[in-house]
């Protein structure tokens, strides 16, 4: 479809969002990621039945933890779409990028840079 989405987004493909674990999300933030979002299939259409529900629960857990430790739970998000909806994929990417721009850089990344300097 040749739609544009921000280049700051790196895609990691998984066979099902059910494969994404809470630890993957937390470690990403630990290593300095400004935001992590998971794009899964439409609820009810997961070919492994519950994979996208598991991912949603894990993102919610991540949001709680990130809120408690002061990083901000809005940096982790879950989106659902059908694999035919290219336009929505681009839309989510743009929306997420705008959200993260507003929240600013990950304070962990700044702390890492300070100690490396």
């Amino acid at each position, binding site marked *: 479809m040749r739609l544009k989405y921000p280049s700051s987004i790196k895609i990691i493909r998984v066979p099902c969002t059910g494969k994404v674990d*809470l630890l993957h999300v*937390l470690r990403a933030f630990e290593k300095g990621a400004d935001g992590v979002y998971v794009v899964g299939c439409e609820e009810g259409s997961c070919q492994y039945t519950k994979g996208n529900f598991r991912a949603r629960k894990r993102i919610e857990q991540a949001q709680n*933890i990130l809120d*408690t*430790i*002061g990083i901000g739970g809005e940096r982790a998000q879950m989106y659902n779409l059908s694999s035919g909806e290219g336009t929505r994929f681009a839309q989510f990417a743009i929306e997420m990028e705008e959200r993260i721009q507003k929240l600013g850089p990950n*304070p*962990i990344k700044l*702390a890492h840079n300070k*100690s490396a300097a």
Partner: protein
Amino acid sequence: MIVADKKPIQEIIETVKHCEKILVLGCNECVTVCEAGGKKEVGILSSALRMYFLNQGKEMKIDEITLERQCDHEYLDEIRDVADQYDAIVSLACGVGVQFTAEKYPSMPVYPGVNTCFLGATEKRGLWTERCQACGSCILATTGGICPVSRCAKRVMNGPCGGSSKGKCEISKDVDCAWQLIIDRLKAIGRLEDYEKVQPIKDWSTDRAGGPRRVVREDVQL
């Protein structure tokens, strides 16, 4: 199994914030099954703590080890060489594990990372309920496999009390009347005549009420 629940991260932060290096020690048994203190939870807690302290401008060294159990000498021995490198150990095992670790490494502060709740089972993922109170003289043979000590609010030994109503206990509509369950079960297994027998006064000397207990098996001691 022993059912435990995660301690709020804020509480753990308060206990370890004065440390520079900590070891988060998990357990591969009960706390893994109730998703509170296994290898995965060790990873999650360590990651969260690292990020919190970095955000506060403090780089805390947090190591992660998960032992098979923390209630056996042979498994606690595995950290013998590294234990003294830390300012504190946060143990995600049940209360038994935390204490045993502290006894084995007496010069090391050992802090609990979970709240130990009860002896229970997994009814379904995310739901654990109490089944046993370790009274020391099990009467399940006469009650169709349902325990009136742990499941009856009043621990009555002979039949429901006057507060049993529509199969529910008077303390809450969410609590089943244990004796209703016992009668239904005895009927189902065809042993209702056990219900008619008046049980003798229970020997409570084996219960915790009499003080800390011990089990000695001289037949296995070398």
